[in-house]
């Protein structure tokens, strides 16, 4: 599904060129759950942003379903964001002026889903995450874990094929973090492709595959014990 070959990302300053990613090759198949790990500043977020079409690589090839995803028109990129992929952020990034309900609803509005259908879809997700009682609260009135659940709900309500999560558990205690991870795992089992960035060795193991980045170079690519044929239907 995702094919990165020889991706470079660098920033030019006056006297030197700083590489953030260097000759990254990566293949992610549909249904995979990939964890990206690495020290701070190693380029994890940059890689994720490139995959998420938020940032462009300096060199290299990137294709989605064998179609180049570089130099996309604004219209096509918006279409990918609406229908194909979705994001979860470390800092939740909920819209503070909107209630829980409205936050979750946002992507559906952009997809053009009718109001009644939206209601049903949001209600179903709220129920699934046990957040029905909180739907009229504002993000600031929730705990960190609850906020991240809202972030996940918002990310998956449009049924994306690809979920990109940049340290989704970074701001959370380990109990809340585990809950989030289990949710992601469940989504993966239902068929969603997930790429997450994490610092937590334990949480990385929820994925089927761990990629290690160091100074922008892929240093390792190992399957976890989760990646057993028995687990895949």
């Amino acid at each position, binding site marked *: 599904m995702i094919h990165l070959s020889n991706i470079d990302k660098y920033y030019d300053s006056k006297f030197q060129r700083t590489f953030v990613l260097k000759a990254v090759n990566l293949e992610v198949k549909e249904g995979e759950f990939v964890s990206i790990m690495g020290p701070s500043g190693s380029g994890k977020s940059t890689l994720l942003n490139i995959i998420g079409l*938020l940032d462009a690589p300096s060199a290299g090839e990137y294709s989605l379903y064998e179609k180049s995803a570089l130099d996309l028109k604004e219209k096509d990129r918006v279409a990918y964001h609406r229908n194909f992929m979705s994001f979860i952020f470390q800092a939740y990034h909920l819209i503070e*002026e909107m209630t829980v309900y409205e936050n979750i609803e946002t*992507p559906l509005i*952009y997809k053009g889903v009718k109001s009644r259908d939206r209601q049903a879809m949001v209600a179903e997700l709220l129920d699934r995450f046990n957040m029905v009682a909180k739907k009229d609260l504002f993000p600031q009135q929730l705990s960190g874990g609850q906020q991240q659940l809202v972030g996940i709900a918002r990310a998956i309500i449009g049924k994306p094929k690809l979920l990109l999560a940049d340290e989704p558990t970074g701001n959370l205690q380990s109990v809340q973090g585990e809950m989030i991870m289990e949710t992601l795992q469940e989504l993966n089992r239902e068929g969603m492709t997930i790429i997450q960035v994490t610092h937590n060795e334990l949480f990385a193991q929820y994925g089927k595959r761990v990629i290690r980045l160091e100074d922008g170079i892929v240093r390792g690519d190992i399957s976890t014990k989760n990646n057993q044929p028995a687990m895949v239907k």
Partner: protein
Amino acid sequence: MFRNYFKTAFRFLKQNKLFAAINVIGLSIALAASFIILLFVINELSYNQVHKNKKQVYRVLNYYVDFKGTNSYTPYILASALKEEFPQIKKAVRCRNVNGLKLKLNNELINVWNAVATNSEIFDIFTLPMVGNQSNQKLLDDPNAIVLSRDEAEKFFPQQNAVGKEITGYLNNQEHIFIVKGVFENIPPNSTFQAQCFLNNQWKVDDINKSFNITNADVDWDKDFWITWVLLSEDSNPKDLQKQIHAFEIKHLGEKPLKIYSLQNLSDVYLGSEQVMNSGMKGNINNIRLFLAIAILIVLVAAFNFIILSTAVSTGRAKEIGIRKTNGAPINSLRIQLLIESVLISVMVLPIALILAKIGLPYAGQLFQTKLEIIPSNIVFYCLIYLCLTLFIGLASGIYTSAYLSRLKVMDVLRNTPMSGKSKQFFRSSLIVIQLLIFCSFVASTLIIRSQYQYALNKDPGYINKNIVLVDLGRDFKGYSAYINSVKSNPNVIMAAGTMEGLPMMSSMASMISNFQDNTQKVKVEGMAIDFNFLKTMGISVIQGRDFSEEFGSDMTNSMILNESAVKQLSITDPVGKKMESSVIIGVVKDFNLHSLHTDIPPLMINMTDRYIEQVAIRYQPGTLSQLIPFLEKEWEKAAPDRPFSYSRIEDIIESLYSSEKNLSTIVTLFALFTLLISSFGLFGLTLFIARSRTKEIGIKKVFGSTGKTIIYSFLKGNLLMVLFASLLSVPITIYFMTRWLDNFSYHTTISWWVFAIAFGVVAVVVFSTVLIHSFRASRINPVEALRYE
């Protein structure tokens, strides 16, 4: 302590350069505009305040019972008679301007304008300080005395002390030697009493005696040529005096006096003399009110801007303030901090506004059609009011902002509770709506004033209002028929006729005539005196009877024509042939607008005259005026070589009737632009701020598939609501004020809806283009940048 406040305040301004700049520019424009208006208002209100005795100084007004009119001219003897008979009158003088005084400088005769013949006591009544330590008593007792203003003294005696010197002058066609008895400081322009030089009374008495061929102008109670000023003692009551004056009138003017004297305080002379003829300089209190209202509106718009921007910017600091509070900062210190910041900005604005006002002053003077001077004696007032106004804006917005921020609960601030944000946004939006409302009302009002102006110019007055010139004959011009006949010989002249005054008439003469059915009821009927063919020349149609005609020998003396209104209001049935005021009614004309559209069509009687023909109305073939004028002038030089040729086009006369409306529309347009400019500054700042504070939200939305268009739209939507709301609200307000204004006219347009549509359009365009700039930039936000750092 305070130094610390200032330091942080400056640092804050430095960090928020853009907002500070927007605030400063908007505020200085607004203040400059209101400074100019206030300069005008202060000057107008300060008239005659320079005279220290103003509370006790009165002018004697003269009401003519017959003519129902008040004049400021009184007989010479009045002053001395009043002073003799009323102990409470301490001083009394009469004044009259002397025309044609010339003084000699190096063998050259130079005109002295504004020379006043009066008594020595004039110096006790008005505040006229002398130059040097000279006494101001008995200066004019000598018939050859002359007292000069500082300017005149410096002109005729450069670098010398003029006092005691002789100067040769030329007056009443004779040469005289005057002796300079004193020099007084120039009278400031905001005094209605003006003089550049004083002479003894005798000069004017002699002059009047000579022109009327009499010897008693100084004791004749009917020679009303002088303005009488009196100074009352401090403890006297002018109301009591007024009552006693009636007996005085009977004593001097007979059992049934035809003149009624009254006292007018010096303070009322400038603004309270609308009905007084020959009053000299007059102000218009309505104009002052209007300008004051405009100044207040502009300041309001600017103050709103200031509040909007400072609350917006300070929201960014809410968090900082919250944190400071948790660290135990006392609420008052925060308040003072914010207050100082906003006062600091407003004070920074003051010099800029003053410079802008100084630059704009001459242009504004042209616009207001008055000279806008900085009067030295008013400088304290200007400074005080300007400073107060500036501080007021700074303090008001500072107090609001600080009260708002320090009221916030720490938890709300730190958690950034959105509810408070929403209610504040509502507050801000309502301020913007008020600004836009003021602007919309200005725009709609201008358009209404303009359409009334156009309506007035184009409405059919009932006579031909184009392609007519009026040539002035002057008084007692015997050869007018010959001139008219020679004019008629030109093929481009369709018709020409003499009249006392052309149409539209500026003056009015009226007499009271009894109703034909009910004797006791008197109707005020205006008069018009014309020559043969005038009605035809003006295209006024006779609907009953006939026009004046040479065929009837008696028309010149015995016939009259009425208009429809006269027939109706006098209740005359079958008017033709009836007698009225010793004349026979020979016809009735269709009603036409005698004067401007401000007044109704009055009942009118038209008589013939050959003695008072002072104008000739000439109707010409359209487009031939430029050829016609030289011809008219040539003929004029033949007919009246000793008289100047002067003419006016009827189109110009009609336009001049409405020049104040034209002016008003220009002024209102200009201030509409000002409010727009200022409020768009505010809006610009605010949207910029909102766009910045929404960076994160926009970033998130883009990540989830929002397009740039949706984001721009979301910005515009809120503003569209505000614009709509403001323009809707402006409808009743404008209608309220403009119907009252239109009531000044007996004939006026109706207010049409497109006026408001245009106002809406203009506001919408300005607001949207302001908002569009920022929202476009906001829509291009790169979400990676926006969301990277938390």
